[in-house]
């Protein structure tokens, strides 16, 4: 139980995928202009991370390992992730066209979101069991959501700020992300990777 807690805490805070591991920066910058969109993106990433990490875990252990084909890891994982993203995309387009509009290109780009692939790979590297994989995915996507939504809130506030022309857009977003990342360093040591 404590181990699960540590995994979630670590994935969310101390080793936050976005702010400490710097994975998934593309959607972090791309869909953080509004909190509502950020929330939608977080949900999409949560879903993809959950499904992809379970699928990749199963495929790794029941298809790749038995055939000693671990070298296929990357390509197979990307295949699985891409398919999951495609499914998510279709589902979102059907269920929430406005969210689909708002996410735009960043929805299919979850395919190449290194946070998702990173999670799948880390699952295997860390030698997690299925339960751990599930909670690691929850923690990682929770951390992604936390960073994305906090960041979106800040960016909405920045909309009203008189940012100098030269720093408008991605520049100021990256500065903000940097300071947010500094702040997240405060969680260092909270959940020592056991």
């Amino acid at each position: 139980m404590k181990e699960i807690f540590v995994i979630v805490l670590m994935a969310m805070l101390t080793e936050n995928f976005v702010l400490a591991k710097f994975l998934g920066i593309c959607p972090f910058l791309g869909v953080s202009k509004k909190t509502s969109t950020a929330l939608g993106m977080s949900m999409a990433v949560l879903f993809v991370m959950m499904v992809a990490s379970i699928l990749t875990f199963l495929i790794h252990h029941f298809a790749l390992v038995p055939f000693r084909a671990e070298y296929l890891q990357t390509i197979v994982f990307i295949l699985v992730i891409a398919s999951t993203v495609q499914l998510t995309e279709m589902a979102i387009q059907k269920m929430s066209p406005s969210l689909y509009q708002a996410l735009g290109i960043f929805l299919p780009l979850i395919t190449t979101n290194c946070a998702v692939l990173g999670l799948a790979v880390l699952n295997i590297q860390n030698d997690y069991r299925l339960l751990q994989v599930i909670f690691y995915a929850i923690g990682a996507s929770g951390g992604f959501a936390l960073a994305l939504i906090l960041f979106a809130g800040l960016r909405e506030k920045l909309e009203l700020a008189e940012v100098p022309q030269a720093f408008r857009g991605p520049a100021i977003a990256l500065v903000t992300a940097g300071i947010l990342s500094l702040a997240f360093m405060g969680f260092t040591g909270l959940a020592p990777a056991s």
Partner: protein
Amino acid sequence: MFTNETLLALAILGSIGLVMSVLLSIGKRIFAVETDDRFDRLMDILPGANCGGCGFPGCSGFAQGLIDGTAKPTACPPGGPEVTVLIGEIMGVKLTPGEPMVAVVGCAGDHSAAPPVANYQGLRDCRAAHAVAGGAKSCAYGCLGLGTCQTACVFDAITITDTGLAIIDRDKCTACGACIEICPRQIIRLHPKRDEVHVLCINPDKPKEVKAVCTVGCTACKLCTRQSERLVMDERLAVVSPEVKADIPASCALVCPQGTIFDLRQYALSDWILDPAARRNFEQRQEAWKAEEKARKAAAREKKSASKAKPKADPDTNTDANAEPGTDATPPAGGEA
């Protein structure tokens, strides 16, 4: 050569791919959505300036409005005739683009011509200043020069002169109407782009009152209306009539005693407003033209008296004698002497 290894890899990849593609095709069935590709095609051709000239919030709103049938297909001013034709192609209708227009600020009363009578302090915004005692100018119609139209213009077509006047660049203006809508003085109006002469005043007050507040205001002397049928009187204001189609002679501007009428064939607008040399040049030309006119008239009179025709009043001294038919019934208190 295929090794077992390669075959195995292909088999694994292939089978996973197969499973996924089956899943995806099932998903495609479940989540099938109809899309209208006209939206994307419209977005491709629209200017993307999001100026709001069509009355919709941004180009995407306009595109949606076109598809829904709530938007007028000819309503995109910045797109011009080309875009209108393209919209017609996409929407499957034949469209004839309207006459190209341009926005003109109807005021030439800068700080020197219509000096401020109060010291306005507060928000640098014409709408705000207008709401405070009608702005700092004595003229209740003149340009306040705080640049609200400039901020509203997404095409960067408006500049505010140091002398407190907005001027619009004809080449950049797309007639989207954003400035017209935001100007609290309703001083900016659309004119056909082919018009080369503009009356730079909208003050409809009595000549005495206009003269009291501004040196370049229209005093309703009607001299210009006798130079061309394009210039007509709207109450106490000379305007270029959009209905009549005829060239406007240069004399329309030259005859104006106030210098209210601007002729862009002679001067650039910024020079006309800012450059004292342009004004001096105008005055010289005005003098020359007057002398010429006098000489011409004298010649005509001589010719007439020679053929013993009835004497005719000099139009320069009697302004009310020859008003255009159909103009204001109440003549101004006093014409230019």
